[in-house]
């Protein structure tokens, strides 16, 4: 049985919309940092991805939240491997 790979992204749809809505201001105030978003709330910006994730566990607990680096141009994750079945 095929396992969905889109479910996790769907769980973050509200957070991704929040990021897009605040992207310009975040680029102005926290370029290069990592932003933590839960729902429509921006919970802070951090120097590292690890710091942002750990803060997420502390503040919102074991629920989906978005940690994303604030950058002008998004860098994709690249795979040369043919093992990725997309």
């Amino acid at each position: 049985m095929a396992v969905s790979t889109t479910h996790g992204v769907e769980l973050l749809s509200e957070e991704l919309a929040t990021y897009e809505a605040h992207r310009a201001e975040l680029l102005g105030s926290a370029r290069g940092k990592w932003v933590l978003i839960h729902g429509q709330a921006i919970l802070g910006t951090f120097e590292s991805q690890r710091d942002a994730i750990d803060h997420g566990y502390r503040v919102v607990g074991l629920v989906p939240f978005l940690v994303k680096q604030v950058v002008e141009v998004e860098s994709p994750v690249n795979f040369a491997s043919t093992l990725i079945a997309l």
Partner: protein
Amino acid sequence: MPSFTTAVADLRTLGPVFEALVAVPEQVEAVLRSTGRRVPQPVRVSALIDTGASQSVIQAGLAEQLGLHPVGMAAIHTASTADVPCALYDVRLALPSNVVVGLVAVETSLAGQSIQVLIGRDVLQQGVLVYVGYTGTFTFSI
């Protein structure tokens, strides 16, 4: 620096593969224990060190098996696709010889049934990989 060495019967064909355990991260385990909830058992997987992967990967379904929630999203590019959104999960990986690493992995489908985790350059950049083709062994130190 902790390390492990693995011999692979056909290293050229199979690549640097080894058995590992995927577990919830320490922080998640601490929250679960402090609230009296069950900590999911680690899942035994076959992992492949893949220098062609810029980030590590877990097979789709592993995160759900461990009760994990996504912590991010990345657009991934492969030889045949571009900008496919995939969720990121914070996981702990126990490698042979008690080498433990924490990582944020992309969740996506891996072809076939034999490999459930790709160890990408996000992990490799923290260590040293020695591939000895003529002895069919590799050593990873991190």
